[in-house]
């Protein structure tokens, strides 16, 4: 009897919730439409892409993928390798340097600590464009222009204040008792960092790694400014050339390469999805 009542009540809840589900499905379709348009467009000939709203291609052509991959010399294999090398090194740099800096700010008392922390926070608000020319000048004098060095070496010097702030906030939530226990066991600051703080920082480190990867992988301006030779180009720079205001318009190839360029970010997101949620929850990142 109770079961029957429960089933009837369940059914009535289901019947009441279908308009809500229908509404949500429509919302999802609206949100996913640009992605479907991009995916469908990548299989269409150039002349059909902008003249049709229907994302479904009338016939499937793989030529956009093949031609786009080889559209310029040396080709997208090299551009993907370049992008992944830069993004990978930036991740290592940020994870190592930002965690060490954050540890210093969160745990040590030193002269001008508050002022330095304030200066670091202010640097978050500085627009990147304001620093572009002075940075370029310095890197040129160092002979780093047209190398990957300006794109990842600064990460090893803890220049991403956002991630330092993120980790400082996280370390402050860790009980100091752990540090004190380690000290009693004879650990110095370096050992405490390596054996206690760094392992406990894992959610924040993963958040840092993921966001550094995505932001560096998608970065267009600095890669355009510092890399000049065709062999050193990266995916965003190469893709921007596929549709050009000076006349050429390979929209099909652009869409095909856009689909492929999403793969690394998508894989990173899939692999670390659980950790992103955990990291967001534990670091207060919004």
């Amino acid at each position, binding site marked *: 009897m109770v079961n029957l009542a429960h089933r009837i009540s369940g059914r009535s809840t289901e019947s009441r919730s279908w308009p809500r589900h229908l509404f949500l499905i429509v919302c999802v379709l609206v949100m996913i439409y640009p992605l479907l348009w991009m995916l469908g467009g990548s299989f269409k000939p*150039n*002349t059909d*892409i*902008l*003249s049709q709203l229907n994302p479904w291609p009338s016939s499937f052509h793989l030529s956009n993928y093949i031609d786009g991959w080889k*559209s*310029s*010399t040396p080709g997208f294999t090299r551009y993907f*390798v*370049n992008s992944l*090398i830069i993004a990978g090194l930036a991740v290592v740099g940020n994870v190592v340097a930002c965690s060490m800096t954050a540890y210093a700010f969160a745990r040590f008392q030193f002269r001008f600590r508050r002022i330095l922390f304030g200066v670091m926070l202010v640097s978050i608000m500085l627009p990147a464009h304001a620093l*572009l*020319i002075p940075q*370029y*000048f310095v890197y*040129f004098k160092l*002979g*780093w*222009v*047209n*190398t*990957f*060095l300006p794109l990842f070496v600064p990460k090893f010097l803890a220049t991403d204040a956002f991630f330092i702030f993120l980790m400082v906030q996280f370390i402050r939530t860790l009980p100091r008792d752990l540090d004190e226990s380690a000290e009693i066991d004879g650990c110095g600051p370096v050992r405490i960092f390596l054996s206690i703080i760094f392992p406990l920082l894992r959610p924040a480190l993963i958040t840092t790694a993921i966001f550094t990867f995505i932001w560096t992988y998608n970065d*267009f*301006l600095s890669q*355009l*400014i510092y890399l*000049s*030779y*065709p*062999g*050193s180009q990266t995916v965003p*720079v*190469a893709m*921007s*050339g*596929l*549709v*050009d*205001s*000076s*006349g*050429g*318009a*390979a*929209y099909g190839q652009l869409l095909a390469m856009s689909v492929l360029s999403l793969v690394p970010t998508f894989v990173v997101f899939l692999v670390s999805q659980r950790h992103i949620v955990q990291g967001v929850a534990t670091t207060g990142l919004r």
Partner: protein
Amino acid sequence: MLTGCGIPVVSAASVSLRVTSYGDPVKLKIRGEAVAKFNHTHPKIQMSYEGYPSSNYFDKLATQFSGGNPPSVINMDPVHLQQYARSKALHPLEEYVGKTIQTSSFEHNLLAQGKDRNTLYGLPVGVSTYGVGYDKTLLDRLKIHVDPTWTYTDFANLMVHLHKAQGPKFYGTEDASGDWASFEVYLRAHGGMLYRDAKQLAFSVTELGDWWRYWEKMRKSGGCVPADVAAEYTYDDNSGGPVIKKLAAFEHIYTPNFAGGYQSLSKDTLRLTTPPLARAGSKHGAYQSPSSVMVMSQRNSAKDKSAVFIDWICNSPQSGAILRFISGPMASATALSGTKGSMSTAEAEVVRYTNLAPRNAIAPPPLAPAVDSQINSLFLRTSQDISFGHQKLAAAVKGFVKQANALLGG
């Protein structure tokens, strides 16, 4: 480690001569082939080639100049030439003319547009011409013939006719009311010009009022696309324009954007014709300009060698044979002689129009002032204010003239 991975980590400082260009991958690849050919035929001068997409090209160039690392030879559009020349970032080419650089094969009007204050800074590479593009397939179906002796009144009547013939969702043409270049073409057809001595506007409030009133009437009659449609695309953006989206039959097109851009995106056959005249028998306002020029940076350790390269790339049949029509027809007659062989239909149309347009044209204007791009943006904003009803036409005209003159320092 990176070198071991085959990744270039060589500093640009180790290369003495660098040439830089912009464009889509096809153009960049072809220009790279031209540079390789030069290096092969000139073993004593080795140019290192850097090609970038057009978007942010000038941001990169500005950073390189400011950071003390400009390329030796730069492919630049004429719009930026004056700005760089007056900031003494470019080296004049005058001392090489008649020696390393031969200018006799360039048409006088084209060469003049590579000059600032009568000093030659840029040698034209290709020719760009403003034209009125149209969907020939559609017009043939409607049995409409485009007559290049049309006036602005004929043009407006034809556009309204097209709107009525094709239904309420189809319009005759783009809304060119906010396009500074189309306004210039209109002014020139009526005997006017944009700037006087690059210091003040050379047109009256009446002329500007007439232009915006013309397009206001077009919008009301359905002759041109409505304001909301016009706001969705950028002028000269071959992807978003109303002809490609099949919302209109006419749109202005520059010749370098025709073959690789507009025509490649449309199944219909597109054609180019001259813009309307002020009255029957008068001249049209379109003119030829260099699609780009080759300039030399002031911070250049090997200026003589750079001059040899500039002359070769702009002025040799070997270069013409490689570059062909990627930026419109070659500007130099000598280089043009190298563009033999078969042409696509779209390329043939560009050549046909490039030869046709100057026949009934007026001489080109002097180089625009450095604030031209700011005035251009102001013009677009003001025209959109009118088309969306945010400003009354008369007030908008006065406001525009006042602000533009302030930008010009008048």
